[in-house]
């Protein structure tokens, strides 16, 4: 019963933790620019992410290592440093964008410039990171994050119709601006399949001391949690498609995105959007910062763990604090969080082959997955994903330029 409870909790927190600045911005841009036509990209991105999350959880449960530690042990220092530096750059950009997104949520509610809110948000994140256990960070933020289900509620109230939704789930060519269509599709994959999520999930599995007996719950959590989480992203896309697109409003700012809730919820609309944006972005900022600490500690062999006393994990704690401070300083400088998100999403896509390729080796190495290697289907999916990731990495920058 306890295990079933843990699975349910894992699925719920996966749903609550799915939506953040990247998924909100790319999904709403997709809806505002192309209607429901890019729903398939959200579904595809979620499927890719579920496969990778399941594999990283399986490896962590069987070897007690996260992705970065496994890369260090299997491929050596050169590959490790490449992935470490790339992931840290993306983490810093994403953490900055998330802090900015949370600050904009306060701006939507109060009208006060967003840079004034960055410091208090950083302070709240620091308190959580210093005083909270992994359970508090993961489960607490995930439960509060269920407020993002408001996107599904809004989509439900708008009633897009089953036929339109089914048509959107089938890939089709756009009737205008194919370069932008392709860029947003690739961007949705980049926003969903963030490398920080893989390492964070695996580190959590190590923190919670998963073993071979937890493989089934890992599989359920990965596929159901990510699957339902994707429904929230789809909700954001549907709302933008049905509210903003008919009015000719594109999502170039969060203020425009927030308006999408006004015709649906009236006076409570902006409040609900701001609450979802705040909780989603704040939760992601904390998780990304914690993951940066994991990355440093696991790469260099330091003591780590959010469940341990901070005095016993001084370098791990210092690393995540430094990343939080750096992200906070970048956010105060006034970088536009929406544009920063798109840059981070582009970089994620470029990095994707470097993240996916090691899985192909690690998931077939008995030292990391014991008697549970990937079968022919798993390997075929990974190989296809590696090729697709390489193609996306090649095209993302030209598409970003061509797509405006």
């Amino acid at each position, binding site marked *: 019963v306890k295990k079933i409870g843990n699975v349910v909790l894992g699925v719920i927190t996966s749903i609550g933790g799915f939506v953040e600045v990247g998924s909100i911005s790319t999904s709403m841009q997709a809806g505002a620019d192309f209607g429901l036509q890019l729903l398939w990209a959200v579904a595809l991105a979620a499927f890719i992410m579920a496969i990778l999350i399941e594999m990283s959880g399986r490896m962590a449960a069987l070897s007690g290592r996260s992705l970065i530690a496994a890369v260090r042990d299997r491929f050596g220092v050169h590959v490790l440093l490449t992935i470490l530096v790339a992931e840290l750059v993306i983490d810093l950009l994403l953490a900055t964008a998330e802090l900015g997104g949370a600050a904009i949520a306060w701006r939507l509610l109060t009208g006060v410039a967003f840079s004034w809110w960055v410091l208090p948000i950083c302070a709240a994140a620091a308190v959580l990171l210093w005083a909270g256990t992994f359970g508090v960070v993961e489960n607490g933020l995930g439960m509060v994050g269920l407020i993002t289900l408001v996107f599904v509620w809004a989509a439900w109230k708008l009633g897009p119709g089953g036929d339109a939704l089914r048509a959107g789930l089938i890939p089709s060519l756009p009737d205008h601006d194919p370069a932008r269509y392709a860029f947003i599709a690739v961007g949705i994959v980049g926003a969903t399949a963030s490398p920080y999520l893989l390492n964070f999930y695996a580190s959590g599995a190590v923190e919670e001391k998963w073993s071979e007996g937890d493989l089934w719950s890992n599989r359920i959590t990965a596929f159901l949690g990510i699957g339902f989480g994707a429904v929230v992203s789809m909700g954001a896309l549907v709302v933008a498609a049905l509210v903003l697109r008919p009015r000719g409003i*594109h999502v170039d700012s969060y203020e425009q995105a927030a308006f999408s809730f006004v015709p649906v919820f009236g006076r409570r609309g902006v409040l609900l959007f701001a609450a979802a944006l705040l909780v989603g972005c704040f939760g992601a900022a904390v998780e990304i910062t914690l993951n940066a600490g994991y990355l440093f500690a696991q790469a260099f062999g330091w003591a780590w763990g959010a469940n341990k006393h901070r005095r016993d994990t001084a370098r791990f704690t210092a690393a995540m604090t430094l990343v939080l401070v750096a992200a906070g300083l970048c956010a105060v400088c006034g970088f536009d969080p929406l544009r920063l998100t798109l840059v981070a999403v582009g970089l994620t896509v470029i990095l994707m082959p470097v993240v996916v390729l090691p899985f192909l080796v690690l998931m077939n190495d008995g030292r990391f997955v014991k008697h549970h290697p990937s079968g022919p289907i798993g390997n075929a999916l990974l190989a296809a994903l590696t090729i697709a990731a390489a193609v996306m990495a090649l095209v993302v920058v030209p598409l970003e330029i*061509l797509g405006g």
Partner: protein
Amino acid sequence: MAVKLAVIVLINAGFLAAACGTATDLDRQTTAIESVRATTMAVADAWLDGEVSTPYARAALERAYELAQDCRSSLTRSPLRAADPRRAALIDQCERLARQIALLSAATASGDRDGIARLRRQESARASS
């Protein structure tokens, strides 16, 4: 070698195909300006109907003003500005829209409902003409 060549040819063909149907810079700026105008009108209407708070309306209008200025900056950056009448017309539109948003923002801050309704009607008439 043949495989590499085929991959490069395929990718370039893809880009060429995408570029053929891709909107030009001017098309994009036109769409962006229309989007800012639509946002401004929608926020002004919602404020008049009491559906959004004054802090949100001000934040949204300030951001709309910045977006209009961004459009203007990217249009004026081009050396072809003087030679291209469509570009010059778009720059005029951006400047007029930015002025209108600034007036709307000031009226929202002072709670001037009549002023907003008047500005809203003016912008609506301009857009339809």
